[in-house]
């Protein structure tokens, strides 16, 4: 009986969150699931039940598959480059270097900037005729490297990736910073007394104790890359051709421009399942370590 009351007490902590979830998430989630089995344009009343057709079509849809591939490429690039830079910045700033307080503030400015500003700036940087990047190449006498960065099928995706990574570093940065704070200072002191070098401290103290934070940042990074939308539209809108199509953009277009709402919801469910599996794997992997 004691145990039962105890469990109910514990449950109460979750009740507010559950209340919100049940009220505002269950219905849209349910509708999304339901709609994925229908063919519906999103406005008129005719909804035709098509069973798993939307799901099967998704696997045959070359544009969707390309967008998923692009999503993985973006995730991969972000996990490696964006997070390394963020991690490095967090460690440096945390080590009490001169100007650390100053840097902490400046590094979070890109995520704060509105999509309009970021889109405009990067379009300007990549502009083939009057952009900063090509201008720089001219000055450095590397003119043969000049490209129409956002229009060229070979460079479009990377260009979009760099712009989005630039904006994303700040978010990973403060998560890493927060993670570093939970490593007790005396662990470093004790190891210093034992004669450990900076690199030994890094590999034997910092990294293991940051494993949780690394996992959080990885999951959120992949999430961010797969759900990237606001920066792609002003830069390339998925082009040239379908080179920079990303999953969230596809879903948005199918739902609102092509009037294939049912199909779009099926794509969302597929994306959600994929991300769920990836996240689960990451969570379990960390526990195994």
């Amino acid at each position, binding site marked *: 009986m004691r145990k039962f009351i105890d469990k109910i007490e514990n449950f109460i902590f979750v009740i507010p969150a559950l209340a919100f979830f049940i009220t505002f998430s269950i219905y849209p989630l349910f509708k999304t699931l339901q709609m994925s089995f229908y063919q519906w344009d999103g406005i008129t*009343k005719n909804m035709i039940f098509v069973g798993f057709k939307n799901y099967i079509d998704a696997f045959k849809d070359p544009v969707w598959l390309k967008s998923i591939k692009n999503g993985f490429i973006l995730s991969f690039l972000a996990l490696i480059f964006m997070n390394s830079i963020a991690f490095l910045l967090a460690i440096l700033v945390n080590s009490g270097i001169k100007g650390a307080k100053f840097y902490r503030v400046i590094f979070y400015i890109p995520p704060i900037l509105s999509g309009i500003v970021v889109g405009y700036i990067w379009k300007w940087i990549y502009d083939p005729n009057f952009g900063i990047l090509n201008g720089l190449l001219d000055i450095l006498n590397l003119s043969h490297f000049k490209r129409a960065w956002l*229009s060229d099928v070979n460079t479009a995706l990377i260009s979009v990736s760099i712009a989005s990574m630039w904006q994303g570093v700040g978010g990973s940065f403060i998560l890493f910073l927060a993670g570093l704070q939970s490593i007790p200072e005396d662990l470093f002191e004790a190891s210093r007394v034992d004669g450990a070098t900076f690199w030994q401290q890094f590999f034997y103290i910092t990294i293991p104790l940051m494993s949780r934070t690394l996992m959080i940042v990885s999951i959120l990074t992949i999430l961010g890359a797969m759900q990237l939308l606001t920066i792609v539209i002003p830069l390339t809108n998925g082009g040239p051709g379908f080179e920079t199509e990303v999953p969230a953009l596809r879903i948005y277009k199918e739902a609102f421009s092509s009037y294939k709402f049912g199909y779009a919801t099926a794509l969302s469910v597929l994306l959600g399942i994929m991300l769920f599996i990836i996240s689960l794997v990451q969570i379990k992997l960390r526990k195994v370590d």
Partner: protein
Amino acid sequence: MRRLLGKILGIVLVLTIVLVLSVSYGKETVKITIWHYLNDRDKLLKTLAAQYYLKTGVRVEFQLYSGDQMGAKIRAAAQARTLPDAWTGVGLKGDLSRLAQAGNILNLTPYIKDWVSRFPENIVAQVTFTKDDGFNVEPGTYGIPLDVNNMQFLYNKDLFKKAGLDPNKPPKTWNEFIEYGKKLKAAGILPFATGFGTWAGLTMIQPYEFAYLGEEKLNAARMGKITFKDAGYVKVLNLLVEMRDAGMFAPGTATMDLPTAEQMFANGQIAMIFDGSWAIGVFKMMNPNFKNYFVFFPPKDERASYQALIPGGIGAYFVVNKDSKYIKETIEFIKWLTDVPQQAKYAKESFNLPANKNTIDPRTLGPQIAEFVKGMDRVYSYLAPYKNPRTEEILIKGMQLIILGQKTPEDVVKEMDEANK
């Protein structure tokens, strides 16, 4: 246990009080509500509404929402049946048809039949459904036009002069067009750009779609009744190849959006652009000193057998909520709004061509607008929807790749026919 419960209830109570205190009771209800997305005309519309109030005592509230917001708002309000009395329509017949089928917008024909003749027929046709037009909608007119526009080529007179071309003689034939392009390029001037990254690229080839295929075959192909290949569509896309080979496209054109091209044109960085009549106002704002430019109709291609028709037609238009409580009053207001005096004021202050054909006095609006006005009767009135909306995306992307030299017109047409089956 009690203390725990007490603490949690306490927090919840505090939260509730904070939230309840911030609930407002809303303002006094307004008689007619109209949602619109005409950002630059918001003040103008509100001034006109105030004028109307003084005249009739009827309150009209214009609410401004922008772009994505408007689309989202209409969708949500349509599902929840909380649409306003009227709003400025988004898109054309394709988008309208769904709202009509869902019973969200009113068939206006019985209400406006006495005065609809003030608008040009081919304009009204763009928001009118007929029995055999391929949409499944009860025949009738569902929109009331506010302004009109069309799209043609514009050119920079000074840059023409610089390349040794006569600034008062823009190209009249396709061959001349290509020749002019080559001459400009030789003089170190970027000949042409427009927004191929978005819908604007489609509009540039539309006159030639009509010229090569003719209205009937073009629409049949779009509806999937015949293939684009059989309709001869490859020839249309070949024009892009000809322009590309002459070096006419400024770098980056393939993914450029229209505002960027407009910026380049207003700054004298490109010699020619394909744009709409509204661009006059845009250029004026971008570069008030930019005046030496003019308009020319899409150059005639001798190899095409039909007449070229240009994109354009209705600009902003109103649709009325079928479930509105004030249908008669709303339509009365819109009738007043599209009367000559109001349209004159509207056109003068917003650089948009008025829909009411009795208002058009080009001399007050400048030479370029006057030239655009001449093109209004060459505007096409009917373009069927694609059987599969993906086909249009394939066409847009295909044109981009043709410009980049990475796909041939035959390939693109093949893909279009695949998708449009």
